[in-house]
């Protein structure tokens, strides 16, 4: 599996997971993809895939005053910058779950001596 394929699958998985409210489980598909890729899938790209998938759902919600509500939350807790803090926190969690899942998956099944995302360079 190539990195972009893994990222695409993670994007789809994260979109579905976020849509159904299971975004906190994003590490699970990332672990699976990381393991199936056996070190060939860059974890960073899995993180990006997660981020884009969740971002799509947030964007859809935002058209229905979701972004305004997130900005209101920031005001309530006294955070400056409008919706920046809720958005950064959401995306940070998303990215971290994707990346860490990928790293864990690749660490479980990666062949000895191979490094993540550099499958073609190993004998």
């Amino acid at each position: 599996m190539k990195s972009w394929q893994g990222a695409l699958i993670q994007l789809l998985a994260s979109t579905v997971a976020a849509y159904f409210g299971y975004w906190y489980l994003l590490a699970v598909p990332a672990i699976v993809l990381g393991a199936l890729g056996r070190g060939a899938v860059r974890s960073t790209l899995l993180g990006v895939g997660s981020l884009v998938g969740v971002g799509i759902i947030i964007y859809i919600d935002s058209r229905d005053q979701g972004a305004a509500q997130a900005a209101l939350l920031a005001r309530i807790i006294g955070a400056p910058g409008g919706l920046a803090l809720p958005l950064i926190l959401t995306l940070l969690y998303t990215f971290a779950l994707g990346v860490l899942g990928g790293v864990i998956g690749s660490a479980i099944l990666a062949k000895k001596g191979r490094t993540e995302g550099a499958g073609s360079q190993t004998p």
Partner: protein
Amino acid sequence: MHPVRLGVSLALLVVVVVSGSVSLGPLPPLFGLLNPASGVWVAEEPYVNGTQSLTITQGVNHASVTVFREADGFVGIASNETWAVYFEQGYIEAEYRLAQMEFLLLTATGNLSSVVGREALSSDIFMRELGNYELAEQEAANLSPSSYTYTALSEFVRGINTYIATASEARMPLIFKLLGFKPTNWSVADVLALQQLFLWENTAAQFDPLYFTFALEKMPQSVVRAFYPAYPEGVQHPIVPQSLNPQIYNESGDIGNLTLYTPTYIYPLNASPPDPPEYGVPSNLSVGRGAAYMDVSELVASLKDFGSNDWAVNAPLTAGSAMLANDPHLSTTVPPIWMGFQLVSPGQNVVGVVFPGFPGVVLGHNPYLAWGATNGQIQQTYFYAEMTSPTHPGEYYLDGAWHNFSVINETIDVKGSEPYHLSVLRAANGVVIQEKPVTIAMDWVGLSPSYEITFFLKADRATSVREFQSLLADYFKVATQNWAVADSKGNIGIFSYGDYPIISGGDPRGILPGTGEYDWEGFIPTSQQPSLYDPPTGFVFSANQITVSSGYPYYIGWDYESGFRADQIYYTLTSTSTVNLSYMIGLQLNVHDYSTNVFLKPLLAALARSGYADTPEYQALSAWNGDMDVNSTAPTIYYFWLQDYVSYVFSPWLHYYNITPAEGLGSVSFFLGPDDYYHGPLIEDLENWTLNYTDIQWFSNPITHAHANASTDMVAAYVEAITNLTEKLGAYSNNWRWGDVHTRILTSFFGVSAMDTQPLPASGDGNTVNAAYGLTSSFGPSWRMVVDMSHPVEALGIYPGGASESPVSPYYSNTFQAWNLGEYYRLIPPNAPEEFFYLYTGGAQP
């Protein structure tokens, strides 16, 4: 396998998962709060204008329903089945006001602490002491299942529960997400518990006798008589003057047996003063776990009536039609304490406003009748010091014998703390609100089951003033209001009906001995209660002023509004021979401070004598007409001067007699409370003395022994006001314009300041008919309505805020600006579907 990498990444993942799964400070777990599918990224159900047709099915019953959502905060519901109208009303109230309803219910049932924590405990304890929920359960059990009230309530509740069952977690209000709160099903008793909360909050006087005990004890009788007369001297325009209804003045009542200037019970002054429970609610409460984001005291204050206006006119002031205007003054919040509805079903087409959590319409009109209310200011709480003894634990002495207190054990769940266990004690003469240092019981007419909600539901369908009057007599017992009414046959009336306790002796203005001699012996018969029907003057009116003339034979209370709004209404209605709807609107929006008619001329004369005539501040005042306009500087000077004048005269005396803050100094109107509500007896005294007794001894300072009179005190207060204004605003300039220092704001119903609206410059003050109490006013006309009952379909109204409680909705506060500018909406808009004109202009029955 890379064990090191695996171990490190697993550890990091655990950190991430744990940090998202536990509460961080005041916030709930971030995985829930930030969840893209159900957290903060998803807003409440959007409010969308337009018409919707649907069918409601319950078992074998089907109903066609039309819902007409309007931009002005009103929702029309029309159905061929009455039950379906109430079902849909419950559904829609829950859809757009669920958080507000739930918090009102939590408050009413004494469960707020379970959601917001320990800081709400004093409120919960008091609500448990009132027994709101037990009473509500009794009231629900007493209702016949076939009664109209039960049908309406049960269908209304079914609508609420249907919404709760079908609404997704994602669409829950933001406040729920912040608190991790999930709504549960409502019952008929829950709605009746809200009724109890409404009744308590609209009960005038409340704890006043606890405070006034100290005036009675610490001041000589002559001072109490001068400062706090049981019936004020000077100009009064009672709601029901003797000249217009002499019949109610003819009986013998209880007032001749009472001693209204001396204490009947002596509270031990070396002990701590009584601590009225509700006001223990702190100003900053917690959302989540501890941050000061939420002011839950707003919740209990939002129903409280600080002052209101209503009046009705007919011939000879009109050509024969009857008209009505009403603007109840409550907290102006977002979401508003009102929601607007038009309810149409066979035999019914009513439009007006209702408290979220109530079915029907509370204030409004139908094709035959329009009604409004102001608080009657009637004393319906009496306080008794129970005689107890260490040799009779758990007992109190009454009527010559020892009796057991009845005990109700309660448990209050408290978020973040152990549950609080409470034993509520009840005596024959009330519920114990304090055990030490003195056991004090409060008797309140609302401690027995009553059915004010039945009154509202039946009034919605009433067809004449007489029928309305009869419903009032039957059902409206607690929190007496001055109900002004006008009907399509040209009749008007005003009725201050309710349970008025009668006692045979003592001073009910303070605490009474609880040994039995001073307990209630009954209530004033309805036929003797204040009322007017079609008076020859062609108008009835009220503005929380004194209810009756001085010859009324019963004691009914004493702490009324000072009467400037009433004066303005009286003179406006008596200075014309013709009233039309425009005239009514002009009066409702009037911002002339009538106190200037009393004080301004003597003030200017005193200032001129003291050499201030050449100052720009004097010039501004002398050129002023007394209107509290935003663009004028004189209102600012006058407003601060009047406050200073009241304080300058009375503050030394209250200190001289050692009235302390713990005894109410600065917190209740008769002890110089904040300017939001100092419009009580003290300012009436000043009015009387400034006009008629300019050298009376009370102008002098008892502490410094400085001799003074009205002129010297007015000038001294003026100097103080100008000095303070100059410090705050700089030298006199356009920066002193009233609109620059006086604003209106809609504060968050939940006390979350981030959810407040922006303030708007506002005319008026606490003395104007168009009232705006305080400098940043969040009290005022919470609902305005004017109706000509010869054309009720053209009735106008507005409430500030909007239909939706979601702060991000365009319909959260969209009517605020229009309301502040004095605009109105047609309550039945011309573009409404045909069924909404049913019974008005021949619209088809739905």
